């Protein structure tokens, strides 16, 4: 009896979810676009910061380099809620950056996700560059390239590996719920994104809507993975 009810909830939920997606329900579309917008922005900014820094760590020899790389790798697993808490306290009107008025705004969410994926992109950039043949690096330097030129050349050579790094960063950003819930506040029509909308609608027992957003989120993740494997096969 109870199982029968469960089954029909799931089945009906799926049918309604497909309807919501196919008919282009405005709220579903809006939330999806906002999610993509925020996470793409965060990935772009994080990439601009973390790629050069990652490259710098790879090229420069300095004491504590291995320790720094270890720290970065530890930060890959940084719980999203801790980043959320940190950014919340920073951006709160009574916090040090309160005057920017960014708490509970998409801008604040972009900052939080950027901070979240910077260590990931930095660390993986180091690994990606390490996979480039060392010989090539010595060749570049022996040809008289400045350090900037050698950085640019090696990054160019490893562009597909770097692209996978960026896609992984994007995947982590769009699928996380911790920072965007705390920093964004899940405000309808303003800061509500795929993951926070799923959490809310599940708590409200509105399963078809949750399932619909879940399907979209999975599709985005699948798309990223397909692109990733195509890139890696090259």
């Amino acid at each position, binding site marked *: 009896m109870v199982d029968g009810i469960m089954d029909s909830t799931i089945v009906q939920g799926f049918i309604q979810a497909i309807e919501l997606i196919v008919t282009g329900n405005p709220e579903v579309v*809006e939330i999806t*676009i*906002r999610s993509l*917008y925020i996470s793409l922005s965060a990935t772009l*900014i994080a990439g601009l*910061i973390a790629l050069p*820094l990652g490259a*710098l*760590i790879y090229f*420069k020899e*300095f*004491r*504590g*380099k291995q*320790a*720094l790389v270890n720290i970065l790798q530890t930060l890959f697993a940084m719980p999203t809620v801790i980043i959320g808490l940190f950014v919340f306290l920073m951006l*709160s*009107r*009574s*916090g040090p*950056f*309160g*005057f*920017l*008025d*960014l*708490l*509970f*705004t*998409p*801008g*604040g969410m*972009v*900052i939080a996700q*950027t*901070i979240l994926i*910077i260590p990931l992109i930095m660390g993986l950039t180091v690994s990606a560059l390490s996979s480039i043949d060392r010989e090539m690096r010595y060749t570049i330097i022996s040809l008289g390239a400045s350090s900037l030129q050698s950085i640019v050349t090696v990054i160019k050579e490893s562009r597909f590996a770097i692209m996978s790094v960026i896609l992984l960063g994007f995947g982590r950003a769009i699928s996380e719920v911790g920072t965007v819930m705390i920093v964004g*506040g*899940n*405000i*309808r*029509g*303003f*800061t509500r994104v795929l993951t926070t909308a799923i959490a*809310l609608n*599940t*708590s*409200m*027992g509105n399963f078809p809507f949750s399932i619909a957003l879940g399907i979209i989120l999975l599709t985005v993740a699948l798309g990223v993975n397909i692109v990733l494997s195509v890139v890696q096969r090259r």
Partner: protein
Amino acid sequence: MKPKIMLLMAGIAVLAVIAAMSAGCTEVTPGNETPNATANQTPTGTTGAAGGDGVLRIATTTSLENTGLLAELEVMYENTTGVDLQITAQGTGQALELGQRCDVDVVLVHAPPLEEEFIDGGYGTDHRCFAYNYFIIVGPEDDPAGIRGAQPEEAFQTLYQLGTNNTEGVAFVSRGDNSGTHSKEQEIWEAAGYNYTEEIQNSGAWYIESGRSMGETLALANEEQAYVLTDEGTYLSFRQDLELVPLVEQGDELLNRYSVMAVNPETCPNANYAEAVNFTSWLTSEETKQFIGEFGVEEFGQPLFTPLYAPQCTEPPFNCTCAENVTA
């Protein structure tokens, strides 16, 4: 030395991003549902940044959001005034904390003792109650603890005794999140003669703290076939998915009073106080109260909230202001 330089550079980069975002944030307003936002709005006191013109930030309890009432009120208000309401649903404790930190302009809450502290602390002003319903204790149909029809304190005493004796089928789910409902639960434990933090919390497997919204807590209690204290509104709007039935629903101590407060502009000069006043006046107007009183009748067969009117609201057990106009 060099790792320090690296860290310094990373720090500078992060600061640069924050600065860049702040510059960009004024035009970054995706999902702005009211393109004609400034068309017919009443003049607002533009006190500094204040989240911009025509934006009002509200922190609210999860019960108002979970029942769906707030979504309807939001649409009504935005359509009539053009003001963009930005509503974040948190437990009452967290909502008040956001008000205290000047992160919102208005709080909608339901925990009279916490509200009083908030006002006394100088964080809130223009306190108006606007509606009420009752808390109820719901539980499994067969009621293994036998609390049906009891007074709330008696029911809690029975649950404690049976629960700590590991009686089969007796468990209680608490919100455990400093929400208005959790605050009420603690009041009842204290009234029943227990020290909440020492005797109730960590007193055994029977006492489950969910740490989640009212809707999720009801779903959890339903899975566990446990007893739970809930507001009437959320229970009614989730009833179709629940096997739990109301067991205790009487007594003034179960009153659930909803209030609105503006964040004190003296404590938070950046708060959008003028708009907060407009919103409070609208929320406590006859028309809005009538709407609140009719909300849910069609879907659930009975109203989820009862609007409060003077002079009833000034008398026990309400003891609050609901009629006086709010002016900036």
